[in-house]
Structures are given as structure tokens and as C-alpha cells.
């Protein structure tokens, strides 16, 4: 006969060893067990926050199915993250699709709201902010999203702009820019006349990235035509253009990408046989210089991946790359979506690793968007 028996005494060493294996969320929850546990947990939690953070690459399927998926690109994530984040996004409760991410927060657009209703959501902590409706209706705006998190609070800025042109060859464009700040909780709109040959033809197809890389409150978008980086400085409140180091056929996500990696602006251009990677390290000064970093031979990568990861054969390997994204912290790593698999390619060591397999026919993954989603800092223990 053994009824459930309470342990008489579990020594401190054992308790701490067990607590050490709990994910952060459980630790935070179990603080209220007793004063002693709270003490142990505070110390473990504090140490855990010093660990190198795992980085997640986030996938969103645009259009029809609108499923959001997360997966880990790092192996040591289970103690920090604990459970899957996939279901968390559906907790938003609305039909949304993700537009941008910053510091672990996602900017989502409500479906069928004509891009006027936004939510800011953290899938790890489930914090949610409902943004008031935008004042202006814009046709397919470019969006920028920046989050600032301190110990006490979270504040964020959303920037969106649309271009009006009267004529195709009109040199003077007017831009309507609308900015939301969580501190004021209102949208402010401005119409700017831009007299540089900037926003000539804001051609975008559904798969191009509409969200900005943000460096020091400066927002950057990759622009299709003309090929440039469109920059908005939210401090000086002006637009300017940054030339690209290389010319490509299309600024389609598989052919080029602009990203922020380790605080530096990076650009990759896929010419079909080789992907060239560039970096700027004196941005956002007005005369930045692109420095060439790497050339990746695409055929070799795809060939290697075919052997290692079972990717299909065929010609024109360069055009099999459907999406490219830079690792948010390590500029030597580029994520490539090749058909229905995502590979992380380390340009320094020329090694590839399979990160995710959609497990679907690759034509179904054609409209997938890739976001690099930085793992958030957990809220501090209160």
C-alpha cells in the first residue's frame, strides 16, 4: 500500500538542479511557491537571461492560407523557450497576417481591414497592443516597425508610407507618411514633397518585403524601381535614397534581400550563379560605402543540399532560391529558402545546415514570406 506520499525533505541541491532544467516561463510562474524558491529562481533566471539568445526564423504564408509558423534555428532553445509558439499566434484571435517584427514583437495586419487595423503582439509573452485605426487609407503601404523595450515598459513606432504620382515620368513625387507612436497613442500624418528621384515607381508584388530594416530610428526599404534603398530618417523627418552595390534583374525575395545583421545593414544579390553579399558599416551616415563580403556559388550549395537534404534536381540552381534572409545577429549566415526547405548557409565556413523542412510540395511554398524574428528578452522577474 503506497498512498501518495509527500517528500519529507528534498535537499536544496536537488531542488536547484531540478529548477535549473525548467524553461523560463515555468520558473517565472513558480516564484510564488515560497520565499526560498523565489530566491533560487531569481538567481537561476538571472543567469539564464545572460545565455546567448536563440534566434528564430519566422515564416508566414501570404494570401490564401495565412498560416503563421515559427521554428527554432538554434538547438539550445528548449530551456529558454519551453513550448511551441505556433499556437500562440492564433491566440491573437483575429484573422491577421504578419507584416514585420522587431525585438520579439510582431506587427500584424487585420485581414480585410484594408490595411488599416494593426496589432502588436509578442507570441512568447502574449502581450498584445491594439493599435487605433489609421487615419489614412493607403494603397499597399510600405511599413516600418520599431520596438523599444526597457525594464518598465514597451514602446513602439509604426511608420507607413504610400506614394502618389500623377504621371509616370513625374520627377516630383509626393509621399504621405503616417506615423504611430505608442507614447502618444495616435497616428500623425504628413504629406511630403520629395524632389529627389526617389520613389519613382513603387512597384511591389505580393511577395516582396514591405517591411523595413531599422537602424537607430532610420527605416530602410528595398525598392524595386529604381533599384535603391529608400531611407526614412524619423529623427530628421526626411527621405533619401541609398544606391545599391550591385544590379540585379528583379528585387524579388529570392533574388535580393536587405537585412540588418549584428547592427549592420547587409545586402545580398542573387545573380543566378552566385549570390554576392555586401555590408555597410557606417550607416546611417549620408555617404555610406558598401563593402563586398562574400560570393556564394549557388550551384555548389544546391548540389550539396541535394545530397545532404534531398532537394530536387533540375537546372538553373540560382533561381531555385525563393527567399533569402540574413541572420539577425551573425552577418556571416544567410538563410536560403530553396524549394520547400530552409537552409542556413555559413558564408565564412561554406557550410550548410538544414534548418526547416516545410514538408510540402515546393509550389505550395511559393508565397511564403521569410522573416527573421529576434528572440525576445523575457520580461524581467518581478
Amino acid at each position, binding site marked *: 500500500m*503506497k498512498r*501518495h*506520499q*509527500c*517528500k*519529507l*525533505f*528534498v*535537499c536544496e*541541491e*536537488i*531542488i536547484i*538542479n*531540478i*529548477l*535549473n*532544467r*525548467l*524553461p523560463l*516561463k*515555468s520558473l*517565472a*510562474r*513558480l*516564484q*510564488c*511557491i*515560497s*520565499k*526560498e*524558491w*523565489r530566491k533560487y529562481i531569481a538567481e537561476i533566471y538571472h543567469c539564464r537571461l545572460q545565455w546567448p539568445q536563440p534566434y528564430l526564423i519566422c515564416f508566414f504564408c501570404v494570401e490564401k492560407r495565412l498560416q503563421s509558423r515559427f521554428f527554432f534555428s538554434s538547438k539550445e532553445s528548449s530551456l529558454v523557450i*519551453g*513550448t511551441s509558439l505556433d499556437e500562440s499566434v492564433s491566440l491573437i484571435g483575429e484573422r491577421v497576417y504578419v507584416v514585420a517584427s522587431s525585438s520579439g514583437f510582431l506587427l500584424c495586419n487585420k485581414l480585410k481591414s484594408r490595411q488599416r487595423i494593426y496589432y502588436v503582439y509578442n507570441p512568447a*509573452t*502574449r*502581450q498584445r497592443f491594439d493599435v487605433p485605426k489609421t487615419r489614412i487609407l493607403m494603397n499597399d503601404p510600405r511599413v516600418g516597425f520599431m520596438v523599444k523595450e526597457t525594464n518598465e515598459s514597451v514602446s513602439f513606432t509604426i511608420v507607413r508610407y504610400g506614394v502618389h504620382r500623377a504621371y509616370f515620368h513625374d520627377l516630383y513625387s509626393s509621399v504621405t507618411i503616417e506615423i504611430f507612436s505608442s507614447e502618444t497613442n495616435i497616428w500623425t500624418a504628413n504629406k511630403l514633397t520629395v524632389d529627389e528621384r526617389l520613389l519613382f515607381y513603387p512597384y511591389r508584388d505580393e511577395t516582396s518585403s514591405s517591411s523595413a530594416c531599422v537602424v537607430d530610428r532610420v527605416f530602410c526599404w528595398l525598392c524595386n524601381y529604381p533599384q535603391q534603398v529608400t531611407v526614412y530618417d524619423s529623427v530628421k523627418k526626411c527621405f533619401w535614397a541609398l544606391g545599391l552595390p550591385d544590379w540585379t534583374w528583379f528585387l524579388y525575395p529570392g533574388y535580393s534581400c536587405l537585412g540588418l545583421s549584428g547592427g549592420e545593414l547587409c545586402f545580398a544579390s542573387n545573380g543566378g550563379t552566385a549570390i554576392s553579399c555586401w555590408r555597410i558599416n557606417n550607416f546611417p551616415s549620408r555617404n555610406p560605402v558598401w563593402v563586398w563580403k562574400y560570393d556564394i556559388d549557388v550551384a555548389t550549395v544546391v548540389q550539396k543540399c541535394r545530397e545532404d537534404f534531398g532537394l530536387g534536381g533540375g537546372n538553373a540552381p540560382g533561381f531555385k532560391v525563393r527567399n533569402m534572409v540574413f541572420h539577425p545577429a551573425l552577418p556571416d549566415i544567410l538563410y536560403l529558402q530553396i524549394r520547400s526547405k530552409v537552409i542556413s548557409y555559413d558564408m565564412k565556413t561554406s557550410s550548410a545546415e538544414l534548418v526547416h523542412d516545410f514538408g510540402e510540395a515546393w509550389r505550395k511554398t511559393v508565397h511564403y514570406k521569410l522573416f527573421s524574428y529576434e528572440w525576445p528578452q523575457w*520580461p524581467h*522577474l*518581478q
Partner: protein
Amino acid sequence: MITLQSSDKDVFEIEQSILIQSGTIKNMVEDDFTFIPLPSVDTETLIKIIEYMKKHADKTDSKEKNIKEFDKDFMKKTLNELFALVFAANYLHISSLLELLYPSIADRIKDKITEAIRQIFSIRCDFTPEEERRIIMDNKWAHEGTEIEGTLD
């Protein structure tokens, strides 16, 4: 051959080569003990410990997959049994078994409600209800989610 005696006074004769996985026993063997009483380990638990050590004594490459399977099944026990094992492994200094037990126990308890945890670990809450409520409110995000359960096993 070394003789181990459980708290229930049952004796087991095991080869030295298997038992040296336990740091405690290894030390005693080096001091020439051949009879080792273990007053804090009951028979049931000792049998399991011996089973574990026997399996892990033979660490050839071909057996590695077997050992992994064994370890997985070995952890499929009640929480009570796991705790008994962790006390014994702690006392006997069997680090490989501890490395197996800690994450297994952590995994079992990670989603349990606070009352269940207090019962399992026999902890008295020394917060006032007010203080406890405050801590929960301040860390609201950690208490959200559907996974939390209240069983004691």
C-alpha cells in the same frame, strides 16, 4: 564481489566493476570495504539502481542505442519513484543517472499548478495571500496558457 544492504535489510551481491559507477561506493571499495550498508535506500529503489548500473556498465558502441532506449523507458515511472531514485542517486553520486533524472522530473513538474508543486515537495507557503497574489499579478504573462495541470504525478 561487493555486498550492498538496503534499508529493509535485503542484501545484494554485485560485481565491483559495475558498482564503481557510484562515486560513493567507489570510495568505499578503495578503502577495502566489501560490505556496504545503505540505510537511506530502500530495496525497491536499490533494485532499480542496480538495474541501471548493470545496463550502463557495458558501454560499447553497439550497445549505445540500446542504452538510450533503456534510459527512455527507465524514466517512465511515477513521480514518487523518480524522487526516490534521485535521492538515492544523489547519495550514491551516480552522476549519469542524476543527469537523466533532473530533466525528467523538471519536465514532469513544469506545467503543474503551484498547489500540486507544494504538495509534491512538501513545501509550506510562507507568503501571505496578499503577497502571493501580488507576485502572480506582477508576472501575469507566466500564468497564461492552457498547459497548466494539477495532478500530483
